């Protein structure tokens, strides 16, 4: 994988943007310096605080981090489906160069699902309980494409076959399906319009390990066959390493480490990433209690000064409490926001 150009002046995270817009490798999605806040009575919760990344066609970008680090918030901000009290307070989100934050409601309705679809973290609750799953697929297709209902239904049958559910279950209501089937149904909906990009927000957390592996394998196959990009969110690092091309690690609303998957796995730099690694569940899938990092995630209304991780870091030095570490490239393609590592070169 070609390394992004080294960082220069200005917000360092720009370095993560892929500047070569020409050719097939032009980025599909660019997120630049994104800020999202939840307004709360105590003050704004800065859930996403200056995050930048790009996703290229066919690429799988993994996003990992503790619970509450802002992963889902990023996912929903891209589709702009966050509800009050959430407000996007800055940054840019571009899809194929189009600015999503400047789109009108109608343009957004068109953009959603046709260009980017999403498998929700709580896929269990993502289905309308009083509508058959078949109708919910047809609904989606007809919202974007003019076609007779019959054709939409044929497509729904096809989609159910792709994700491995008996098309007979199209007439079932969500509560009549098992958790795994519901998850597959949601994936089928996400595939309905053949979008160039999918966001998968912990698509398998609610499922048991066997079903989990099964579904992941299926997504992998589909991706190879259909060639869409994926923004893949999970806190299961083992799954992530296996599955993504590049990985971004989030802590307290910021990306603290960003590198190709193997590189993160072989050579984690940030103490937080190492902590996450040590709480790595075995690849057999046994759930191990996360023991890696002592302490609790910070209060995002008033995050710690300096390095946000310093209250929990074992290698903290006085300077770290004051100076904000910037995301810097320490080895080619490997970025980390940590004072312990000198900038490359």
């Amino acid at each position: 994988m070609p390394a992004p150009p080294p960082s220069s002046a200005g917000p360092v995270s720009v370095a993560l943007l892929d500047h070569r817009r020409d050719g097939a490798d032009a980025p599909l999605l660019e997120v630049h310096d994104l800020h999202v806040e939840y307004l709360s009575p105590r003050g704004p919760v800065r859930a996403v605080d200056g995050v930048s990344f790009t996703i290229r066609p066919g690429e799988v970008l993994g996003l990992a981090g503790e619970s509450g680090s802002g992963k889902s918030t990023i996912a929903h901000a891209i589709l702009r489906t966050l509800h009050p009290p959430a407000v996007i307070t800055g940054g840019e989100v571009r899809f194929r160069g189009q600015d999503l934050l400047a789109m009108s409601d109608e343009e957004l309705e068109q953009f959603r699902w046709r260009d980017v679809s999403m498998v929700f973290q709580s896929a269990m609750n993502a289905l309308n309980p009083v509508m058959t799953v078949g109708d919910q697929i047809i609904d989606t297709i007809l919202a974007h494409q003019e076609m007779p209902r019959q054709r939409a239904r044929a497509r729904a049958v096809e989609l159910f076959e792709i994700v491995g559910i008996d098309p007979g279950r199209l007439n079932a209501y969500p509560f009549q399906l098992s958790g795994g089937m519901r998850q597959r149904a949601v994936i089928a909906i996400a595939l309905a319009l053949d979008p160039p990009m999918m966001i998968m927000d912990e698509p398998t957390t609610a499922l048991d390990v066997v079903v989990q592996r099964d579904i992941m394998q299926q997504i992998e196959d589909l991706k190879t066959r259909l060639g869409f990009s994926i923004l893949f969110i999970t806190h299961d690092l083992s799954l992530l390493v296996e599955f993504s091309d590049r990985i971004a690690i989030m802590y307290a609303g910021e990306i603290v480490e960003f590198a190709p998957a193997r590189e993160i796995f072989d050579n984690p730099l940030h103490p937080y990433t190492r902590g996450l690694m040590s709480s790595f569940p075995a690849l057999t899938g046994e759930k191990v209690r996360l023991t890696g990092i002592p302490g609790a995630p910070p209060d995002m209304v008033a995050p710690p000064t300096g390095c946000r991780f310093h209250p929990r870091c074992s290698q903290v030095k006085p300077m770290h409490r004051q100076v904000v570490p910037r995301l810097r490239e320490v080895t080619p393609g490997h970025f980390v926001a940590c004072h312990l590592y000198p900038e490359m070169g």
Partner: protein
Amino acid sequence: MAQTADERPIPIQTTPAGQVVPLAPDATGGAMPATRRSAVFGGVRRLLANRKAAFGAAILLMFALVGIFAPVIAPGDPSDFVARPHQAPSAEYWFGTTGQGQDVFAQTVWGTRVSLTIGVLVGIAVAIIGVVVGMTAGYFGGRVDDVLSLVMNVFLIVPALPLLVTLAAFLPPGMLTIAFVLAFTGWPWGARVLRSQMLAMREKDFVSAAQISGESKVRIIFAEVLPNMTSLAVSGAFGATVYAIGAQAGLEFLGLGDISTISWGTILYWAGNNAGLLTGAWWTFVPAGLCIALVAFAFALLNYALDEITNPRLRAQREINNVLGRSKEKLPKRARATPVVRRAG
């Protein structure tokens, strides 16, 4: 395993994002008995800071004063014959005279006493029954809940007014009968709400903490949990008072009360009986009805304000209104896409 107060675990709460945060003492109430009194005053002050609540409270205060000082405001016996029947309002008789030549103003003033007293008494009685039955059912669950819920539901489904009428017809006429039948039919509404809230509260950590520390069930229900549900109980009592004043007036209007006492309901009964309206003597009919409406409206305002203060969703909405710079009174339209508000800096 008895624990001293100091060893008691700190009450905590899990946020939707899975974070665990300590609860503010004000949210767990019972954890800090010393401050409860000031918490009550603080609550009242917070309520009155709300414009709707202050307005409602002012109306109620005015009626309370009128009731208390009835002998000063309208000296003499309000059922005395004072002037020609059905005289229109004049400087001497502000609200005119009844079909029997009584002063409508004096009657309205004295009626305030009876109507408010019954209303408040029944409101308190209903609130107490509701709290005891509802919270007991919710706390114990299982059989106890089954039986109590069944009783509540039966009371809810049996049509209240016909039951009131039938009861009033059989029991000896009088204020006590009225108060009794109103409490008898009015309690299950509040009990139901408190029960379901208790079911949710039962799962909270501070309840388990109290259970582990070996507190008696009665203490847990009424000293630990009840303070957290004051706003529900109070709003139930408000509702019951409105119900009591309205239903009392209804029963008396139908001639089922003690028609020799003077209350807003009996004033309306006599107005109807003496064909007040049909002879154009609207003044015999309008004042008492307006009084009932004003009192009910005042309680509705208080309840509305109570909800506004305690309902987190409404609070969040206010918050976002402030940030988005709209008028504070207006809720924003449902945003179809996450709002983008770029902050300077």
